[in-house]
């Protein structure tokens, strides 16, 4: 997930930082059993659509844990 440093508002960066961590960080318990990679790819595709229009979402700050 990319972010444009100069145009992104702080809330957008927080969202992208969070998504980076939720989807690419974190511990994977028994990966062979747990994760269908196809599932995760679906989430990624879906979210990239959200990210590209994130400035139109007008998420309240309170909905963004960790922002600020």
């Amino acid at each position: 997930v990319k972010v444009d440093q100069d145009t992104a508002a702080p809330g957008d960066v927080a969202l992208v930082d969070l998504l980076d961590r939720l989807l690419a960080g974190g511990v994977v318990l028994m990966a062979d059993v747990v994760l269908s990679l196809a599932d995760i790819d679906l989430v990624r595709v879906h979210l990239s659509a959200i990210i590209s229009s994130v400035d139109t979402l007008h998420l309240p700050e309170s909905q963004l844990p960790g922002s600020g």
Partner: protein
Amino acid sequence: MSVWVYGVVDPGTRLPDVPGLDGAPLRLVRAGDVGAVVCDAPAEVPQELADLLAHERVVEALTEAGPVLPARYGSRLPDDAAVVRSLEDGTRWLSALDAVRGRVELAVRAAWRGEQTPSTPAPAPEETRPGHAFLARLAARSDVQGRLRDRVHAPLAELAAAAVWREARGRDEPGRGSYLVDRAEVGHVQELCSALAEEPELTVTCTGPWPPYSFSTPGGGS
């Protein structure tokens, strides 16, 4: 029904009063020295932003209650017994939990602003051998990346218990740092980021505190 995993915690963790996915109640599955917070998993991995934020709210509430090794979003196991099996190596999990105890993660993005990459060596115009020109460009770029690392990551890492830096993969991407810091150090890291962001040739953002997503794998830096 399969179970949805939020993270690995101390076995005595008090469950927060926050609903799991689709309102499913949170449960603590104990396995010796550690435990995992789970709820019944929906048939498919929920994909709405609201679902991811709801998941994050549970993990953040757990972070308030004690140390957490957050699971990657979408982690599911077949049943509680599988959760217990995956936590069998209790010592390993416990030392990973101890490493994040009382600490949070801060996320930093940094890049040289515009073309102001200081003292970038100009490509030698007389260089006509294509292979050498390519290598020279590569070296110059790696040098620019290296100086970003020295300027931003190195001082931040000194304030952190653990740190990870990922260099930009492309020209328009920032370098990305993750810092595991004592709660008392959060303000210092944020102040340092603000000071770096004041420098005209740098763009720097700092978000968090986050649960320690980049420091949750036992025995691994990230």
